[in-house]
């Protein structure tokens, strides 16, 4: 894997440059020797060297997400706009950093029992909320309990369901007792819902004020319009939260967003128009970036419903989809093709050995024949509520599958109520997944037997065994083996076609700088752009 080797060396080189260990000339010669063009190397140099963060400036961010009905209650967070603002105001026990690794945030660290059923989080000391109160275990427990219990209307409720007991051990320690072993539990508490807010003392938390421990203090909050923030002078993290002020604008219309960036009325935007992003790149003073993340599209079949109960039918359908064309037309190349399992290259245990499934009409026909069929007619439900372009994707799929003798009847569903009336209800439909930071979370939610969102009604004995084992397995290598096997199982037997992983494509002013690597778990550097970026 020559390419991989090169990548590592470039990383090293950049590291050296960033720490001022090498000169520009040295950097350039080394980089060009590795096959990088001079121009690219030059850009890389300037970006790397400038990478020393600076404080100051007012960052104006135009977000395609955000709604007038957004609230500061993390239990109701429903879109990237409010998630981003939430990350700016508040912190969590743990954080997925820009490398994609899990690091402690408000916790100093954690320890698990051997079976991974009991977790002890040691809290960072001396962290102050914006109102001056010092964060302690009560705040953490109340914040998490905000999502638990009968009356909770939080979308994070199922995430915390495995917690049997949650208690403080002194002021600085929180103990979780889980129903079953979970090696990735520290990942769970990094979920965007589980922000730590000041307790009001009666077991409730104060979410209305927007007070948290985060890098920015709420100034004005007009949901769906604009919010302004000021830098938290007492922020506990070093090297984060560089802007003096942040103005967060909701700009729903992509043309307006793009124009605003072009005319310098905002400094960064997300959700670029994929159709014209190549033109946007040519604009002076504008930089377009993209990150492959965990966001992916699925086309799940109910594996207990005919004809999808026959694995050959499922394979025939998987083979009759040309993912490359879909990538080109739906995402205009801004993504990677999927391999019929939900684990992204951004995940830790992605199985890179598993052969990529290709558009293969012969194989499709073969499996169709094996299933005892010469022709097949199936309904595929789609709406753009699933993801932008879902209907187009379904239409493309229909045209491609027709060549294998499969007649896909595209059923256009209404956008409204798609998630309640179509998803999980119709035997075959288009779905979008934001992705989960860990294999365990992804598999548990979407493929485990009995999971609420087991969209393909998948029930594979071996898979379910492995899932439980791997969850509690603390040995890295063994875990990797298990997860890789599970990906193979899903790829071969699963009822889910996973055609694409979408890139996050966003653009910013030239003046904006960021670390060489950006997180792929959410849009805009893990939705932490305002915390992580700075003006160069």
């Amino acid at each position, binding site marked *: 894997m020559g390419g991989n080797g090169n990548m590592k060396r470039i990383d090293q080189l950049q590291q050296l440059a960033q720490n001022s260990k090498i000169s520009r000339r040295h950097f350039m010669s080394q980089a060009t020797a590795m096959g990088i063009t001079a121009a690219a190397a030059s850009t890389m140099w300037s970006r790397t060297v400038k990478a020393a963060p600076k404080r100051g400036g007012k960052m104006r961010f135009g977000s395609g997400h955000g709604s007038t009905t957004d609230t500061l209650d993390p239990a109701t967070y429903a879109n990237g706009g409010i998630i981003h603002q939430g990350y700016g105001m508040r912190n969590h026990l743990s954080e997925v950093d820009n490398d994609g690794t899990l690091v402690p945030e408000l916790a100093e660290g954690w320890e698990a029992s051997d079976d991974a059923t009991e977790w002890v989080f040691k809290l960072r000391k001396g962290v102050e909320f914006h109102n001056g109160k010092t964060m302690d275990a009560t705040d953490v427990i109340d914040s998490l309990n905000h999502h638990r219990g009968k009356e909770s209307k939080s979308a994070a409720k199922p995430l915390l369901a495995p917690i049997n007991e949650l208690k403080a051990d002194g002021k600085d320690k929180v103990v979780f007792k889980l129903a079953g072993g979970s090696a990735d539990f520290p990942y769970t508490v990094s979920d965007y819902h589980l922000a730590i807010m000041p307790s009001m003392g009666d077991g409730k938390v104060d979410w209305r004020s927007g007070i948290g421990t985060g890098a920015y203090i709420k100034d004005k909050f007009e949901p769906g319009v604009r919010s302004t923030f000021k830098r938290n002078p007492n922020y506990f993290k070093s090297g984060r939260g560089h802007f003096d002020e942040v103005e967060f604008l909701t700009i729903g219309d*992509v*043309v307006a967003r*793009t*124009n605003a960036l*072009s005319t310098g009325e905002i400094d960064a935007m997300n959700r670029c*128009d994929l*159709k*014209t992003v190549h*033109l*946007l790149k040519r604009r002076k003073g504008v930089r377009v970036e993209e990150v492959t993340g965990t966001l992916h599209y699925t086309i799940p079949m109910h594996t207990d419903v005919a004809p999808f109960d026959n694995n050959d039918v499922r394979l025939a359908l998987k083979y009759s989809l040309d993912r490359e064309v879909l990538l*080109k*037309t739906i995402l*205009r190349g801004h993504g990677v093709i999927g391999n019929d399992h939900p684990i992204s290259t951004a995940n830790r245990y992605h199985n890179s050995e598993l052969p990529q499934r290709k558009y293969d009409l012969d194989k499709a026909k073969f499996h169709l024949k094996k299933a005892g069929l010469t022709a097949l007619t199936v309904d595929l439900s789609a709406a*753009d509520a699933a993801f932008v372009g879902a*209907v*187009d994707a379904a*239409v*493309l799929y229909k*045209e491609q599958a027709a060549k294998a003798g499969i007649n896909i009847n595209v059923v*256009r569903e*209404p*956008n*409204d109520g798609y998630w309640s009336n179509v998803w999980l209800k119709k035997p075959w439909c288009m779905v979008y997944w934001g992705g989960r930071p860990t294999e365990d979370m992804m598999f548990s939610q979407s493929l485990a037997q009995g999971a609420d969102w087991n969209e393909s009604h998948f029930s594979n004995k071996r898979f379910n065994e492995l899932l439980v084992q791997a969850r509690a397995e603390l040995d890295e290598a063994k875990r990797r083996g298990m997860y890789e096997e599970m990906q193979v199982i899903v790829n071969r037997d699963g009822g889910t076609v996973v055609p694409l992983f979408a890139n996050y494509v966003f653009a910013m002013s030239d003046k904006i700088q960021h670390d060489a690597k950006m997180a792929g778990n959410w849009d805009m550097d893990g939705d932490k752009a305002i915390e992580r970026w700075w003006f160069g």
Partner: protein
Amino acid sequence: MTMPLTGSTFSGHASPWFSRVAVAAVHFFLLILFLQNVTVDFWSAIPGFVFIHAYSAIVLVYWSRLDQTPAGDTVIVTLTLEFVLIAILFWDSFSAWPWSTLFGLALVQICAFAAVRYWSELRQAPYSAWFGLIVILIYIMVAATAPIIAPFGETAIVGAEYDEWSDKHLLGTDNLGRDMFTRLIYGGRNTVGIAFMTTVLAFVLGGLAGLLAAAMRGWMDQVLGRTVDTLMAIPSFIFALLILTIVGTSVPSLIVVIAVLDATKVFRLARAVSMNVVVLEFVEAASLRGEGLWWIIRSEILPNILPPLVAEFGLRFCFVFLFLSGLSFLGLGIQPPTADWGSMVRDNATLITYGDITPLLPAAAIALLTIGVNFVVDWFLHKASGLKD
């Protein structure tokens, strides 16, 4: 609105032989086109044959009364209504060849009738009106014969995405690799067709209600008037948004919803102009004679309020057109993959920022048609009001 009651407004003299030949020619044109394009077996072509001939029979029945009479107006309006109703009821089968084309050709035929009927007026029309009429005619022809003149299928993916303009793809391809030129033609057919049907339905509903209110007055006028006031008090965009979300954005529901909302405005006009007619003595004479409501509406009032209504039809058509494209902008209009100009502008709007004029084309198409219609309406109003300044 001044009332054109002089009667001389439409008293042209067209020679009957000319109009007969014109209609016969259109009929044969229709038949030949149909036969040429029937690719399916004989039996499934039968409905088409029946359709054409039943249609011709209707034409012949109305025949003797057609030339240069106000009855001719009625024939044109009736035929239009028939087709619109059929099209709304059977939209699904109508959007498929050959029904849609038959429908389109029927429209062409209606235009031919109108042209023959009003030939003497047309001769005196100013250039702007001629320009408008020609534009409208071209649009109708294009819409009617879309499957024949379009090089590719409406939703067929025939090339790479965003191809340049070339011999194969005259205007390049769109984001899915569909031919832009083809989409533009079909978009015109869908957008114009739906806007036209919506407007007609709005006029049937609003016009009828307005006539009823004016003719019956009393409680009927009050009830209808209050209902319309209430409906108008709700912003139509929001109302359309609500209703379309409830009933779903299928083409028939789109047509009905916008038509009902637009009918309120038609109602007001129809009622106002009818009121001017109702107070005239010939209406009093008819009601003294003991004529029924229907006769009074149809024979006494309607022929006299047609000119302002027709002019309003043109304007409302434009508004519906723009309304539809506005809804498409918010994603509630005609749904993909059906081509429509509003969403074509919307889909490609970002390109304008980068100096690509492709999205200008559907917008220009919308503008050209509305301008054309407005020119004709201007001329018509000018004629109907007898203004000679």
